[in-house]
């Protein structure tokens, strides 16, 4: 049991170090959402005066949770492409040949993304606070938001890892990026659904990410709301469970093929 825990910890640590030691790979996924947040907060601040816009102090307050989720999405896909790199450069085969627990190969990556997603969410909250962001839910609200972000990051990492293990190609993982990117943007994450119309509003309403971000946002603009938080966390957990099932199946398939 302790050997298994040590293996999980070692591979999680390796996953985190891989991300941190490749600044070229990890800085853009962190900076792009930050840049988008800075630009959109300044550009769309007046829109908070529109009738139907949720009562917010600023557009930054409305946007911060979407930025956090966007960052988690980008970083987790970068992490999953490392899984494919491991397959491409033969490290995956060496792991299989060693007496390491099979599930730790996957769990290491997912745990690494979970920890990174948590830290990254705090980073965005701290940067936002430096620019006047107020979180109505206070410190507990921030913890709630970062926990959802961490779970979502683990979910995306699992989903993308399933794809990475199945294809064994980092290019294919990055090629799947537009699909998740669309899920992120065709939603109510960047503007309130109340101010949308037509098919886009319908698509945004169906999109589970809309409801996840709205649940997180409730803690920021309205104050602590357990019901909304549970709704957000359940969706993140759903991503994680589906991702884990798919990734485990993909891992079994590759092991059987090997």
């Amino acid at each position, binding site marked *: 049991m302790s050997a298994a825990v040590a293996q999980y910890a070692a591979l999680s640590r390796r996953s985190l170090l891989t991300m941190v030691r490749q600044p070229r790979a990890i800085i853009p996924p962190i900076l792009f959402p930050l840049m988008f947040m800075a*630009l*959109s907060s*300044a550009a769309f*601040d007046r829109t908070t005066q529109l009738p139907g816009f949720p009562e917010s102090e600023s557009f930054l307050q409305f946007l911060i949770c979407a930025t956090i989720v966007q960052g988690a999405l980008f970083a987790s896909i970068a992490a999953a492409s490392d899984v494919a790199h491991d397959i491409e450069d033969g490290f995956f085969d060496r792991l299989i040949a060693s007496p390491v627990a099979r599930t730790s190969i996957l769990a290491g990556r997912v745990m690494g993304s979970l920890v990174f997603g948590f830290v990254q969410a705090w980073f965005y909250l701290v940067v936002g606070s430096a620019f006047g962001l107020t979180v109505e839910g206070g410190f507990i609200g921030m913890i709630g938001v970062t926990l959802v972000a961490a779970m979502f990051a683990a979910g995306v990492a699992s989903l993308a890892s399933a794809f990475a293990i199945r294809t064994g190609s980092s290019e294919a993982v990055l090629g799947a990026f537009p699909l998740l990117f669309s899920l992120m*943007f065709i939603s109510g994450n960047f*503007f309130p659904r109340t101010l*949308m*119309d*037509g098919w886009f509003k319908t698509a*945004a309403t169906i999109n589970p990410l809309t409801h996840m971000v709205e649940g997180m946002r409730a803690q920021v603009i309205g104050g602590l709301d357990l019901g909304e938080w549970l709704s957000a966390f359940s969706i993140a957990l759903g991503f994680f469970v589906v991702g884990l099932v798919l990734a485990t199946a993909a891992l079994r398939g590759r092991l059987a093929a090997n």
Partner: protein
Amino acid sequence: MSSAEVTWGIARRSIVLISRLPSAFFPSLMMPVFLTISFAGAFSGIVDLPGFPAEKAIDWFIPMTTIQGAAFAGITTGMGVARDFESGFYDRFLVSPASRASLLGGSLLAATLRGLAPLALLTVVALVAGANLHAGAMSIVVLGIACLGIGLCAGAWAVGLAVRFKSTQITPLMQSGMFLTVFLSTAQMPIELLTGWLHGVARLNPMTNVLQLARQGFLGDVTWDTTWPGLVALTGMIVFLVGFAYRGMQRVIP
């Protein structure tokens, strides 16, 4: 071979590469379509803001996303030059008797022409989505002028970086440079409705005038008053960025 033949040969090779390596060019076509859908859909409510100049969100956003597409398309030319440096192919051009100006001219001609691909695709998207073309065909003509100019600027920026760094690893800087230039302007909101630091930056950014040139036919009539500031801004950007690429090309050693 004359300089004109070299220039055309390089440009033709770059254009042919679109069909030979579609994965490198395809994102520059699809990204603006996706941006159009996202911006026009998500921000459809901003037209209700007092003072907002467009009837529909798509009228406001599609010229910006077309410009962004032309920029991405121009950048792919620089990415191609960087790839040729990595494979050693570009060194053969450099040691040939062809002048550096004709080599650069070929890449920049290709970048300019590549900017027409997103224009064609997004014109179709605009028509399908029911965008207002208040000035009829002139709406597309002025948008086309802006696209050709920005394609050339983006190509010059990307080639300038490619000849300095000789590596595709510089691609993120090529992309983020153009992305920021577009978004640090009136890309998302008119200047009157911008607040804080972005208002000040957008006023100074020449891209604001280029976007005014590109958008005018979607918001109203095409007039000289809303055209010339864009043409001046484009000329200034072209002179500066082509100068940047030319200096790099003159100094590059095989």
